[in-house]
């Protein structure tokens, strides 16, 4: 009759123990910050992870035609030089790399292994960007976490579902299942001259600290950039109508393709959210930051460049606003209306 014994305890004590139990459970199970989540993250990187990460890094060097040796590998993987040398020995014994003096290069097997890992990585990044609401700054990390643990089949299934994407959300091409990848194109932003117009095709997501800064500045692949001034330690440009400047170090992390000047220079665009009830405007573009299902739905509703929208009603609680487009009233939340560029009609 243990339960009866408990019943005879003071209700105050019971109340307290109930609260404590809930607090402990919350501490353990809380997502992201809870003990359980921390524990699973603390588990050391396995040998397989190191191996795959090093192959990926070596491929990246090869692709960008940068030199690669034991020290840069150790630095990139954040391991000691001793450990890196052990790792290289292991790779060599598996015939994944060839060693030539100081330089390390991939063997054909090694290259195709690396391409497989990169394919998995970029497909998952695409998935996080389009089909989930994971933060932009976390796509890369999540993909890094997942790339060593998923099977190729699962990834191929995912790719098929998403319509076999060929670019990751940073603008990088995704290698095919057979392991082909196009030659790199474009130049890094620090090579552009004053008055040139370019479109961002790639933003390097490593190191994370720099990438996060670029994201905070509101830069994204697909964005048009107009260079206004190039100084020794500062590159100034206009992006989506906003003045922006970067140090050459940061600018080197952005790849752009040059756009012929015939295309309209991006001027400061107004946002749909600024349209007042009774006003009319023409849609200029949907921000590339609006992705996946949300973007598709907006386009389904007729929000495409060139279509006319007018704000007609406002919800009793202020948000969303009802916009008339192609003969229908569509409710759009201000958060989404912030991602639609317009040209106000007078």
């Amino acid at each position, binding site marked *: 009759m243990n339960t009866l014994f408990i019943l005879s305890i003071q209700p105050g004590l019971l109340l307290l123990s109930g609260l404590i139990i809930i607090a402990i459970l919350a501490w353990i199970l809380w997502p992201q910050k809870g003990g359980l989540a921390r524990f699973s993250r603390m588990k050391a990187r396995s040998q397989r992870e190191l191996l795959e990460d090093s192959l990926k890094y070596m491929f990246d060097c090869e692709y960008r035609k940068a030199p690669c040796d034991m020290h840069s590998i150790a630095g990139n993987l954040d391991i000691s030089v001793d450990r890196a040398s052990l790792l290289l020995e292991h790779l060599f014994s598996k015939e994944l790399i060839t060693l030539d003096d100081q330089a390390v290069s991939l063997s054909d097997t090694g290259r195709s292994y690396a391409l497989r890992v990169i394919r998995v990585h970029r497909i998952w990044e695409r998935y996080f960007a389009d089909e989930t609401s994971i933060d932009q700054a976390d796509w890369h990390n999540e993909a890094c976490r997942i790339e060593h643990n998923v099977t190729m089949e699962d990834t191929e299934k995912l790719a*098929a*579902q*998403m*319509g*076999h*994407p*060929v670019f990751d959300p940073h603008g990088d091409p995704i290698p095919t299942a057979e392991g082909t990848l196009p030659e790199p194109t474009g130049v890094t932003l620090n090579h552009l001259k004053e008055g040139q117009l370019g479109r961002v095709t790639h933003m390097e997501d490593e190191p994370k600290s720099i990438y996060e800064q670029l994201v905070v500045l509101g830069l994204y692949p697909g964005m048009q950039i107009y260079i206004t001034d190039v100084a020794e330690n500062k590159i100034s440009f206009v992006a989506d109508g906003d003045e922006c400047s970067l140090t050459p170090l940061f600018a080197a992390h952005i790849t752009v393709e040059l756009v012929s000047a015939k295309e309209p220079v991006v001027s400061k665009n107004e946002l749909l959210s600024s349209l007042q009830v009774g006003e009319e405007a023409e849609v200029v573009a949907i921000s590339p930051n609006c992705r996946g*299902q949300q973007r*598709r*739905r907006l*386009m*389904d*509703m*007729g929000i495409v460049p060139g279509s006319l929208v007018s704000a007609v009603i406002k919800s009793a609680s202020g948000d969303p606003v009802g916009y008339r487009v*192609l*003969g*229908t009233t569509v409710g759009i939340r201000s958060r989404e209306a912030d991602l639609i560029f317009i040209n106000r009609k007078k």
Partner: protein
Amino acid sequence: MNTPTNCESCAMHNKANLVKLGINLDEVDYVIAMAGNPNTGKSTVFNNLTGLRQHTGNWPGKTVTRAEGGFVFNDKRYKMVDLPGTYSLLSTSTDEEVARNFILFGQPDVTVIVVDATRLERNLNLVLQILEITDRAVLCLNLMDEAKRNNLEIDVRVLSKELGIPVIPASARRRQGMTELLQAVEEVATGKYVCRPHKIKGRSAKLNNAISKLENSLAKQFPNLTNTKWVALRLLEGDDSIIEAVRTGDLGSISAGESGIQA
């Protein structure tokens, strides 16, 4: 044809010909697919023709599962497949995949596209996409009563000429235009009316270039394929079912012109 067509009284006489079959669909002469945007009264048209009673609400996206029904018209037995209502056929969502794949692989004899006359422009987005896939379609211009009430006038003849398919004005809620619709379906199914569907213009040179390159190799590999342009475009969109059909060669069998009936 024993029954005279193109007369004013046909609607009355033909009502008797329209025997509702319910869902007895073992042997049919023609398969009809029904596509359209959500909330265009597609289900109402479907119910009118088949005698089934799917719920129709004034709310986009009511029909989620694919419904099938049948009817007999002028001694011919028709099976009707109500596809999920979609705004487009270009994305990877399940609804759009079901609709897209049925129109391509299911090879319906006729595709009836139900559109909302009051929101024609937006609905045309889907219509033009369907006309890229199939050559045999009929447009049911539904909710004409509502369009009239709202002072909208639609030039049916010009619309039919522009799209290259029969256009039938209807008000399914009042059961108006149903017989004319069936007549048009019959004419397209029997080949009396030959559609010349509108094809999309105004694509960029870069895209057209890529499409025509693929079209050439597709035409070599699948000589009977009629809608190579669309298939090429789908390959560029990375459509998995089309990629698989090219890989396995199944694309060749659907283009042979057989009106295979697929469940």
